[in-house]
């Protein structure tokens, strides 16, 4: 069971929900939490677990071999990303723009562009009892988050069986990193807040999930602030509202210190139980 936790708007409580839900489920059964918000990974600030392993992650980029090159210019023509340019008798590769398609390398008539690995980030794997936690962190200055998200998902698929509940903490927005995180999820929870920004970005996220044909539901965070427009929207669109987390300054304070919420706030714990029950039912009725 793969459960992705996403949102259109940032800062609505994706990480709060991910870490609390994962930790709460771990009281009952084995669960994996993966922080796929590789640009700004924060789940690890709330999870205190033992580091099991650490791996550099790479993407493949072309490296120019001057000796073999005949300066035919084929490479810069085949590159659809403008990642290769020719300056007189020099071929320049821009690794940030390269998507690793291998076309320049494999179509080079003189084997002058060999594909070599370039580090894009790091994956860390932690364990704490029933909870396995995986965090990937994009190196600063790297533009593309998607390849690192994809490599992290591969790591999880290779190391854990399908029957374990896997929670993917997604980046905000609706663009490619979010698609990569949610596209194979069995269920997606969209976290929102009952404000105009929350509603507007929720609609974008709902549009994205419908396009991806994902099953999804909504968790309303900071419930009680703002207005009823988010709730009315969910009702009119027939979108299940899995939980309403109350607007409570104590929750914000606990979060600010890096603390889990459910052990101290019973109303929050009851919402976690509500979500857990819902997700388990979804997992068995897949």
């Amino acid at each position, binding site marked *: 069971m793969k459960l992705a936790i996403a949102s*259109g*708007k*940032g*800062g*609505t409580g994706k*990480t709060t929900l991910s870490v609390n839900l994962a930790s709460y489920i771990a009281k009952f059964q084995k669960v994996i939490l993966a922080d796929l*918000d590789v*640009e*700004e990974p*924060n789940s690890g*600030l709330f999870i205190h677990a033992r580091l099991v392993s650490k791996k550099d992650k790479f993407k493949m980029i072309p490296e120019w071999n001057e000796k073999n090159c005949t300066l035919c210019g084929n490479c810069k023509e*085949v590159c*659809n*990303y403008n990642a290769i340019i020719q300056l007189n008798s020099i071929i320049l590769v821009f690794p940030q723009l390269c*998507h*690793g*398609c*291998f*076309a320049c390398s*494999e*179509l080079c008539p003189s084997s002058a562009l060999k594909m070599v690995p370039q580090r894009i980030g790091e994956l860390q794997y932690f364990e704490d009892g029933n909870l396995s936690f995986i965090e990937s962190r*994009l190196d*600063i*200055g*790297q*533009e*593309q*988050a998607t390849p690192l998200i994809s490599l992290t998902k591969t790591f999880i698929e290779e190391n854990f069986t399908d029957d374990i509940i896997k929670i993917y903490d997604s*980046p*905000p*927005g*609706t*663009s*490619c*990193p979010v*698609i990569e995180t949610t*596209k194979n999820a069995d269920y997606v929870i969209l976290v929102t807040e009952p*404000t*105009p*920004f929350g509603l*507007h*970005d929720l609609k*974008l996220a709902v*549009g*994205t999930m419908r*396009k*991806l044909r994902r099953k999804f539901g909504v968790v309303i965070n900071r419930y009680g*602030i*703002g*207005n009823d427009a988010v709730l009315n929207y969910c009702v009119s669109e027939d979108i299940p509202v899995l939980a309403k987390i109350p607007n409570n*300054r104590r929750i*914000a*304070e606990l*979060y*600010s*210190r*890096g603390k889990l919420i459910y052990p101290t706030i019973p109303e929050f714990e009851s919402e976690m139980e509500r979500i857990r029950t819902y997700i388990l039912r979804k997992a068995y009725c897949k």
Partner: protein
Amino acid sequence: MKEIVVISGKGGTGKTSIAASFAWLGGKDVIVADCDVDAADMHLLMQPDYHESEDFYSGEKAIIDQDKCTQCRCCIDVCRFDAISIRDDMLYVDPLECEGCGYCARICPENAITNEIQNAGQWYISTIKTGSTMVHARLGIGADNSGKLVAKVKNEARKIAIEENKDIILIDGSPGIGCPVISSLSGVDFAVLVSEPTISGLHDLKRVNELVKKFKARAGGIINKADLNIRITGQIEHYMKSENILHLANLPYDEIFTYSMTCGKTIVEYARNDLTTSISVIWDTIKQAI
């Protein structure tokens, strides 16, 4: 002409509410560019009239002509993104997986594959309620190339600023540190970093600041919700000092952020109190700094 970008690393720190307040305070002197293209919210507060709109085309996807395809599977062999699969003896491209590299089209012996340029969203030029101009956009659902759309919005804003002889472009950036953020930072003079005193807020501020340092922009920091955790507020102040980030102000945890948004107003229009005075002072400080 000077460019100011408002970014935050972490989402939900109050970035857009603060940027919209600056847009209100700047009035007709400021061209606004909403570069948070995959969750653009500035328009909810600025009443844009969308008087010009244009489709944005960027990125390609491969399409297989089934009449020409002989199922030789050469394309499957070269595709590094596993975007091509076989169903009922026919080859299909999964548009979600296709990165538009064009390799398959180049090597297809039957010339059965073409690349089609994608509509990746729309961008707009609007007159907003301050009487000034805003350039904004909407990224297509699930579209790639948000960085390129950001660049488009910024370039249009620059053109307008030159035409209308305006001195300041105010840019609302997106969360994170990836391509849209990098694109919104390029060429700016001043980066306003909106943070909050949570361990995530501090962590994300440090990462986004490391990115800002790769550009020539001067940086200033706002700690929003500063009274939520005084200890971390102190840590952020200390960090900003050590990094030579101009400390612009600490703002209180105030639900006015939500109330004003619910009425479709910027904070500085909605209320007149210590918070809004602070925001006005911040805006004056930034104008002086540039």
